[in-house]
């Protein structure tokens, strides 16, 4: 018995497709790694331009030395209450510096990169924002990236 009755018939329900896997091998131990945080949580320096809450494909650099009180969040897609209480609950920069101090990792990268997820033009994120951030991390010899989003 064949279930196929009509050629070319397909469901009208949109079925999202998971993209092909990507995977970079880890080649050195944690205590030899320079680590960056990259987040889509909308974190940026208070002195920098806020993200457009209606959708924004731009990104910001945050120095690895930035203090909590110099940082803020512009993101319209999640409840900011916790992150406004403590930036580390979404952007664990103090914790990362402590891990570098105790030798768990080698160093904190010179720059963290941030964007505002949950909206914006997927094509621009794929073709411009993502590759530009990746190139900067390569230029700055970053060995590993911890992300928060989703």
């Amino acid at each position: 018995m064949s279930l196929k009755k009509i050629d070319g018939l397909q469901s009208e329900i949109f079925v999202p497709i998971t993209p092909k896997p990507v995977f970079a091998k880890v080649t050195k131990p944690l205590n030899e790694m320079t680590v960056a945080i990259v987040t889509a949580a909308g974190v940026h320096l208070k002195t920098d331009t806020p993200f457009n809450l209606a959708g924004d494909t731009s990104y910001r650099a945050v120095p690895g030395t930035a203090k909590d009180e110099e940082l803020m969040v512009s993101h319209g897609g999640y409840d900011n209450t916790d992150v406004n209480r403590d930036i580390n609950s979404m952007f664990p920069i103090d914790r990362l510096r402590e891990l570098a101090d105790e030798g768990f990792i080698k160093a904190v990268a010179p720059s963290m990169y941030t964007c505002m997820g949950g909206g914006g033009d997927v094509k621009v994120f794929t073709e411009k924002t993502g590759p530009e951030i990746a190139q900067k991390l390569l230029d700055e010899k970053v060995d590993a990236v911890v992300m928060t989003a989703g």
Partner: protein
Amino acid sequence: MIVQRAIESVGIPTIIIAALPPVVRQQGTPRAVAPRVPMGANAGEPHNVEMQTGILKDTLEQLEEIDQPGKIVELPYEYIAQI
């Protein structure tokens, strides 16, 4: 996750701390960890240094441990937001 895949594809290993594991799975994350946290406190409860340190350390260890793309490891931390 688009940005995570872009970084991974130039050869830098990445791991994401996710509050919504099904979303990062759908979008093709290379590596993820999932503590039991609400979106907005992915890296742990505000001002709970012990939890935040634990989550970050475990996350970095899973960066080394995870040996296949798309794997999501649950982390034993729980924070229920009172907001």
